[in-house]
């Protein structure tokens, strides 16, 4: 064992370092201050100048909620050799935590965030200035962003793509959708046969429940349409939205740890009584290539689910602002879903550019017909009541 000297030395080192550190704990954050952000290009964007400045910066750091970022990095590198992209894939909550911690400590490490977590982004990070909204005026194919990206996707935060959280069924067992109303999910024949990822650990699933509560009137109308009579609320229940959640849970809703588990339960071929599930459309439809039998029950009343935004935002005091702008523009892609958009141009996901044709049958413009969009100020302010209601069930 030749470890002895080494271990003793390391202990002493650790000791020394930390003891000294304890004594000299004056804040010296200034020393850790980042390189000053280079001046941003003028009002009218000069992409040549930006690209040149970006080359000088030589690097750009991005946190992304999707590992598909690594595919986008490849195409970006081919387009702009000389700019290294340092990409990390992290869940939304982890990104928020890391960004908040870093900036609180005076570290400005990241340039671009590809993040969902709408309630926190829109209500907390943007107003506090931890994130900045930056929309390129002209996109890679020369189109003006204000012409092709709807305003709702430019303000208050630039939307990169949209994903839907919707009800899936097995199209092998059911050639036609077996349900036509959300209220069907509370019927006895679906008892114990509806699954979803635990809303307590997944923001967007809680957002779905919160939106259902917000749209209680529509839920009440859908109830009447389905059962031909007005809904009778259970004692202590405030509205049809809460009533739906209550009945869904009483109907033995099965909670699981991931969308993948739920969608496999639904989509596995050769089943007699497959369940239904709420899951993210984009990543699940893809598995149909491998023989999975997943289909979306688009025509559910009042809506089939919610749509959530994935943002593309710049961090406060981004150390490589020009490279960041270049990367953001690249990731927004062109009118064919090409360039930096390719990894996200899949069925069940929509580019925020309205001129990009959809991969599946439903286009960006039709999304509102089938789904609710999340009202972030509402879910942020009122949503905790729904969370508490869920806790008490």
């Amino acid at each position, binding site marked *: *064992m030749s470890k*002895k000297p080494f*271990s*003793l030395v*390391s*202990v002493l080192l*650790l*000791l020394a*370092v*930390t*003891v*000294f*550190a*304890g004594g*000299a*704990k*004056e804040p*010296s*954050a200034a020393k*850790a201050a980042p390189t000053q952000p280079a001046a941003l290009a003028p009002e009218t964007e000069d992409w040549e100048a930006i690209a040149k400045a970006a080359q000088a910066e030589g690097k750009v750091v991005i946190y992304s909620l*999707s*590992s598909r970022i690594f*595919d986008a990095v490849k195409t970006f590198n081919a387009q702009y050799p000389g700019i290294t992209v340092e*990409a*990390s*894939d992290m869940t939304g*909550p*982890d990104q928020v*935590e890391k960004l908040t*911690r*870093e900036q609180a*400590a*005076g570290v400005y*490490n990241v340039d671009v965030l590809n993040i969902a977590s709408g309630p*926190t982004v829109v209500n*907390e990070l943007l107003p506090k200035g931890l994130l900045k909204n930056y929309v390129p005026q002209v996109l890679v194919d020369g189109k003006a962003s204000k012409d092709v990206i709807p305003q709702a996707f430019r303000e208050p935060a630039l939307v990169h793509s949209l994903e839907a959280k919707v009800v899936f069924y097995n199209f092998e067992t059911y050639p036609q959708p077996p349900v036509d109303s959300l209220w069907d999910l509370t019927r006895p024949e679906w008892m114990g*046969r509806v*699954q979803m990822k*635990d809303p*307590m*650990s997944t*923001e967007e699933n809680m957002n779905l429940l919160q939106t259902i509560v917000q749209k209680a009137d529509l839920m009440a109308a859908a109830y009447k349409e389905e059962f031909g009579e007005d809904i009778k609320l259970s004692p202590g229940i405030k509205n049809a939205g809460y009533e739906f959640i209550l009945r869904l*849970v009483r109907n033995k809703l099965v*909670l*699981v740890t991931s969308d*993948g588990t739920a969608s*496999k*339960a*639904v989509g*596995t071929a050769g*089943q*007699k*009584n497959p*369940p239904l599930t709420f899951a993210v459309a984009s990543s699940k439809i893809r*598995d149909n*290539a491998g*023989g999975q039998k997943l289909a979306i029950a688009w025509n559910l009343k009042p809506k089939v689910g919610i749509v959530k935004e994935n943002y593309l935002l710049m961090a406060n005091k981004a150390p490589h602002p020009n490279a960041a702008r270049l990367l953001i523009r690249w990731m927004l892609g062109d009118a064919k879903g090409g360039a930096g958009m390719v990894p996200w141009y899949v069925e069940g996901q929509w580019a925020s550019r309205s001129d990009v044709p959809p991969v599946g049958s439903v286009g960006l413009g039709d999304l509102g017909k089938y789904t609710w969009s999340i009202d972030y100020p509402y879910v942020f302010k009122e949503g*905790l009541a729904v969370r508490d209601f869920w*806790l008490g*069930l």
Partner: protein
Amino acid sequence: MADRLVLGRLFRRPERAWGAGLIAVLVVLVVIPLAIIAVDTFRFDESGPRMVPGAVPGQWTPFYWIRVLAGGFARSIFYEPALHSLLVALGMTVVSLGLGSILAWLAVRSDLPWKGFFSTVLIIPYIVPSWTVALAWITVFKSARFGGTPGLLNYLLGVDVPEWVAYGPLPMIIALGVHYVPYTFVLVRGVLANVDSRLEESAELLGAGRFEVLRRITLPMALPAIGSAFILTFSKGLGEFATQAFLGLPLRYYTLSTRIYSALNNRIFGEGYVMTLILILSTALMVWMNQAMQGTRKRFVTMEGKGSRKKPVALRGWRWPVTVLVSLFVLLFVFLPLLLLAWQSLMRVDGRYGLDNLTLHYWFGDSNPVLAAGQPGIFRSPTVWAAIRNSLLLAAVTAAVSGAVGLLLGYSVVRNRGRPSSRILEGLSFAPYMIPGIAFSGIFLTMFARRWGPIPSLYGTFALLALTCITKYLPYSSSSGIAAVHQIDGSLEEVGMIHGIGWMRRFTGIVMPLARSGILSAVLLTFITTMRALDVVVLLVTPKTVLMTSMIFRYQSQDFTQHAYAVMLVIVFLVLACQGILNRLGGKMEL
């Protein structure tokens, strides 16, 4: 016993000096994070204004404590999950400690055949993530009601297994219990290896039956280690998240850890931190009780100056039945889950169990756009190679440093028993165990992102990763260090003192060799745990310091199941290889 010679002078007792030094270090690394957490439970966080009209973030308030402990939701936020947690943790501890101790005794003291083989493979359930056993369980017991591929029992016999068999506390206890068998196995094995078999033989000569020897000699001697193994396992059971979520959620069976996770994930820190603190306090209470028990009970020193010998206990007629049982356990709980992992890493299309569906593509294949969106096999990815290098380095550094610190700490704690500093040191070294990984690394990120006197900003460095892991996993080594030094008779060192042998030589010549097997066990556990760490490192990893677990996370989040399982198997292989090396180093472990 150790204080028979009263030597007040410090230079003869340098462990007091480094004991004080260690306390200072731990105050910085443990007390400050804990204090931050504790203070935060009394202040409104960003969610405050949304929960209480008029609240201002940062404002002092007992709100979160009241909400968790006495509010209208206290039952569902706290009391019910706490009961569930206690039940599961207690159950799994009984399972793992029972099985682990028996297996350790068989492996060290009996004439069980193929000991080396059993000792090696028994580590495996701890290397693979805890939910692997859970996954195997579900694969067998799932009822058709839950959809997807039917469970094996359902498929073969057509029986619909009751849902309390498939989900809920029972499978949690079994899956977690099995997962932690290696953990208790390693801890107890390290101690038993040090017990002089002549004690047992003398008892036998005096007419004691084999079970009496076990009950009255072996067990009491192993008790300090079993005690600390109990606490380590029990607290692990309280904190374990993945398996409890996987097996509990379908029946909405919540535990404290699933509640904490959801609170932190939803950025309702106050709520999450209150529950975290309660966990920490209850663990501290257990550590204290363990100490108190060890203080009042006779301590058994098992290593003294005379030569010791180890003669295996003959199992006689029991030999083959026991071998069959152990083999069955290994087959069902070690190889079956591993086989499932391996098989699933070889499936061209996920979930189809057929020989025609097997491929090595996800291991060695070049990018093929039809499979896994063009993701090449793991060994074709430079990132995976970098991750392998980083993970090995991190695990080795963490294990070596915390092993060394653990031994010094254990020495200081045991030789100063009765002094308050001993108690403080033991308590401090244990505290990081209960802080949830994500909260812990978040605080470290803030603390060390800026420059502190002579320490430069550690942001994004390997050093920060190592420091975090060392602190977080110190409890493994410190508890083993304490248990190991416990067994060494102070008179051995006194002999050295009388002969005027300096402290350094005494320590390296007497204490270290005798404590080696116990410490090496802890080093092994730390190594494995670091190789598997994810929540502790997730905020600290940068593209340059990517780890194997972050690769698994990355593959899984994209549903590249085969890649994820392949990387997991690489971890298993690496750990087993390193275990082999460690066994060579610790030749005395007599495996």
